[in-house]
């Protein structure tokens, strides 16, 4: 078995980080984000990053950590509304943002990982986000050309992994992680649990091992909740 399991995040990222690189990160809001790897990327001091992620974390957590230290030059995201430091840097012209419709972002990552350099979608036709992009008519409808995304490094969070790098996600923590895992030239995964060989049913694998270059046991699993919303027990 090729050795994929590394001792910690620093060794798993060794040789993969360089200034100005594109990093794709899994997660939706703060759900299913690779907390351990984000901290290690922050500590590495790598800068000028383009980060492809649906959201940008919050001020002191998730990808917000990399904004605080000014390591990010550009975000490619669909929604960044929960981050005050992000707003400050953006309005001061220190940070570039490329907004993508959420489904277009998911498909760009999927396409990039699947060897598809571009695809046509109806989403955003007639809006500012389609301006300057090639369009084409299919069956009387207008579609806009969007490019696949291939990242220099992809980082994902799994619930369970086996030593081969097969990954299983849990509930809505799956979100962007499978496409992100596939779109990296190299992919580093962190898992809440690494189980033994054969302990994951092949039918239950969400990300097959081929997409995972290196794997670590996650040491940061705070899993902060953005909107804790509860109902009261019926009397």
């Amino acid at each position, binding site marked *: 078995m090729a050795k994929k399991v590394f001792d910690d995040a620093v060794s798993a990222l060794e040789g993969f980080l360089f200034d100005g690189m594109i990093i794709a990160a899994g997660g*939706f*809001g*703060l*759900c*299913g984000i690779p907390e351990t790897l984000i901290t290690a990327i922050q500590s590495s001091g790598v800068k000028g990053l383009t980060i492809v992620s*649906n959201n940008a974390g919050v001020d002191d957590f998730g990808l917000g950590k990399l904004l605080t230290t000014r390591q990010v030059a550009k975000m490619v*995201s*669909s*929604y*960044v*509304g*929960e981050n005050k430091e992000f*707003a400050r840097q*953006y*309005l001061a012209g220190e940070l570039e*943002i490329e*907004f993508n*419709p*959420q*489904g*277009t*972002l*998911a*498909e760009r*990552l*999927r396409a990039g990982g699947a060897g598809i350099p571009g695809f046509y*979608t*109806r*989403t*955003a*036709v*007639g*809006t*500012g*986000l389609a301006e300057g992009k090639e369009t084409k008519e299919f069956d009387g409808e207008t579609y806009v050309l969007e490019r696949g995304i291939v990242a220099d490094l992809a980082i994902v969070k799994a*619930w369970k992994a086996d030593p081969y790098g097969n990954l299983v996600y*849990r*509930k*809505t*923590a*799956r*979100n*962007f*992680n*499978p*496409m992100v895992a596939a779109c990296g030239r190299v992919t580093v995964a962190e898992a809440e649990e690494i189980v033994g060989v054969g302990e994951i049913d092949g039918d239950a694998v*969400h990300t097959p091992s081929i997409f995972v270059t290196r794997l670590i046991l996650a040491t940061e699993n705070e*899993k*902060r*909740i*953005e*909107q*804790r*919303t*509860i*109902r*009261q*027990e019926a009397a």
Partner: protein
Amino acid sequence: MAWTRNEIAARAARELEDGFYVNLGIGIPTLVANYIPAGMDVTLQSENGMLGLGPFPLESEVDADLINAGKQTITELDRTSYFSSADSFGMIRGGKIDLSVLGAMEVAENGDLANWMVPGKMVKGPGGAMDLVAGVKKIIVVMDHTSKDGTPKFRKSCTLPLTGANVVDMLITDIAIFKRPSRTEPFELIELAPGVTAEQVRELTEAHYVEKIAA
């Protein structure tokens, strides 16, 4: 008298049909879930990768891995399935979702929708709204009829950047309801909130529409 947020949500819920798959936006649209008629089979989709949303959890049930698109904690049902964001937007873009209820800043008489940015202010991003209006079979917008300073929000054309062009099928405001038979026909005024007159609606609306209030 204008409808309340809950009354708007309850009215939108009357557009639900048995067997519908539905995506609800953030804010008033989320309240629609509270008014699904008893016995009606409606499955809610959340674009972060879940079909079959249950109610908010009890304190003891809170699970950080289980949230809706508004990042609120949620519960699952016996019918629930989970999938990736790509599969989720495949359902949306692929026309599998029957109905979406969304909020808005402006709607135009040609069905254009603006609900994602105000130039010069901090831009939060479109999230999944552009994909929803591009792919969902029927789009209902719920919003206040005018902005806080009294400016009509149902307009001849949108002044704000668009979320989608010619995508709105029905508009429920706090004083009136407009619907159109197809996306090539004008909106029709079909209902008024209690005590609101057709003339009052005319004064507070910039868009052209056809009055079809039952006498």
